[in-house]
């Protein structure tokens, strides 16, 4: 399998604090990679570095063979990296379909001026993207809520919509920040099967941060563990479960007796 994204010695310092420290990470094409670690381990910071929300202090990020270190978020989105946020970040005042439609922003091939002047080609494209947005909602099981205002959805539905909006950019790599946090068991199951479907049917590589270990162990094919900004372990779920360092990071070191 080929690598879609790799980071080499990626670091981010906030003042004297190393939020992410010399992290080497490889994500293979079409895998579901879990990123875990105790609170404050630097998981979300790593997401922000990859997706371009923060500039890195040092190190290198390569995506599909292209150096994307320190590109801005909108550039990485153009290249095919999409992300969701930890808190439900949506356009709360807009309808569900408008949310997804906004996500299709990158799908435009016609120039802004053509769209301003309502050229036929622009209108045609608009229609096409609308269809795409509806298809996407159908795929995610939100088609019936199309006209609802996003702020009125339940927490679980909002999380699904968040993923849906991120998918509207046609990503190759999807970064999910705590996709099932705060969900009830049945919503969690739906989300887990959706994430699998996104990978299988749409061919999107997925990297996710999650605290729900059951979900991570069940869903992820490979797991990377961060602690205090360092990568402390990497491997299959079964290996990670047995890893002594990981257990220490989560539960603390056992005092020598």
């Amino acid at each position, binding site marked *: 399998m080929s690598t879609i994204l790799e980071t080499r010695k990626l670091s981010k310092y906030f003042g004297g604090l190393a939020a992410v420290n010399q992290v080497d990470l490889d994500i293979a094409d079409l895998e579901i990679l879990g990123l875990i670690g105790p609170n404050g381990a630097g998981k979300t910071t790593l997401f922000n570095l990859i997706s371009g929300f923060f500039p890195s202090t040092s190190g290198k990020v390569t995506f599909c063979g292209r150096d994307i270190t320190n590109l801005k978020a*909108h550039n990485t*989105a153009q290249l095919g990296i999409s992300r969701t946020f930890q808190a439900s970040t949506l*356009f*709360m005042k807009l309808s569900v379909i408008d949310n997804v439609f*906004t996500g299709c*922003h990158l799908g*435009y091939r016609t120039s*802004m001026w053509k769209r*301003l002047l309502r050229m036929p080609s622009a209108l045609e494209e608009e229609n096409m993207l609308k269809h795409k947005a509806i298809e996407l909602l159908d795929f995610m099981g939100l088609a019936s809520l199309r006209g609802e205002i996003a702020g009125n959805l339940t927490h679980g539905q909002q999380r699904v919509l968040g993923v849906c909006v991120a998918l509207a950019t046609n990503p190759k790599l999807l970064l999910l920040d705590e996709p099932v946090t705060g969900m009830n068991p049945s919503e969690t199951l739906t989300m887990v099967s959706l994430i699998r479907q996104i990978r299988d049917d749409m061919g999107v590589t997925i990297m996710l941060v999650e605290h729900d270990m059951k979900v991570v162990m069940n869903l992820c094919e490979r797991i990377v563990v961060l602690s205090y900004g360092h990568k402390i372990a990497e491997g299959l779920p079964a290996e990670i479960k047995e890893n002594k360092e990981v257990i220490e990071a989560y539960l603390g070191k056992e005092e020598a007796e």
Partner: protein
Amino acid sequence: MEKPKRTYRFKRIDTHNRTSIGIIVLVIILLLVPAVMHSPYYIHLLIMVGINAALAMTFIFLLRVGLINLSIASFWGIGAYASAMLTMRLNLSFWLALPAATIISGVVALIVGLLLCRNSGFGFIIPTLAFASVVVLILGTFDVFGGYVGIVNIPHPEPIAIPFLPVIEFTSKTPYYYLMLFLVAVVITAFYAFYSASTGRAWRAIGLSSSLAESLGVNLFKYRLTAFIISSSACGLMGSFYAHYYSALVPLTFAPFPKTIYCHIFAILGGIGFPFAGPAIGAFILTIAPELLRATGAIEPILTGLLVILLVLFAPTGILGLATSGWSSMHPSESIDRIGKWIKASLPTSRTDRENRK
């Protein structure tokens, strides 16, 4: 047995048609105003309403991309002075100076925007305020611009011959009124094109959640800069018109306080959710009201200020916001109740209150 709820049914015209009919009626009324109203004073007020409304629209235009602009009056002034300079020093015709002044304002906005549009929030607001102060200083200090005394005798627009119409001469207020209507229509058309369809969606996205918009591939800087240039050009356009209409310019007219702040208030009063009707209604009320309140003399600004405070407390969505949603949801007694609570909360607690709490 429960009585079935009585429902009233009207033959409904669908919203889209209703809006178009409303706009057509409004345009006809606006076009007929000078035929009915002969007082030049009221026509003058309406012209000022038009200018103010257009300036307030530029505020909402930038607000949509999450930027609050304190240099609206400055770009208005840049347009006005540019137009005055071009006609007086270079003897250009007004009809050339008008687009030229618009472009000059746009170019200045491009240069300023390249520096400022990377920021948002206070990082944008405060520098625009600084820029606004610099503009007033430059206009006031250099003799080319006439200093703080200003420029007088700016030429009126040359007579213009439009096919199928008699030659229009700018000798009375009426032709200015029609020119104002035309220019405001130009601004509205331009803004509407940007608001609607796909570009509008990206801009609205920035205003609603800039980080999400960014993650979806919206280039914040590019969109913010474009919005800044377009809105400032519109200010410049209205400025050029103002210069030749008023025929005299003083730098302090273009100071951020109070002009820019008033532009914000016009928009907020009318309702910032309504990019065109809101500013128009707000500007109409607050341009006419001070004239009516003129009898109150020096306390006029206090009354206007009070109006704004009441507005923010009880109708944060503006007059139109209240008219479209608020009436039904808020009973009058409820709003009186709110005023009472607010006054109570702002008063120092009385002794009995304090004792009771012990």
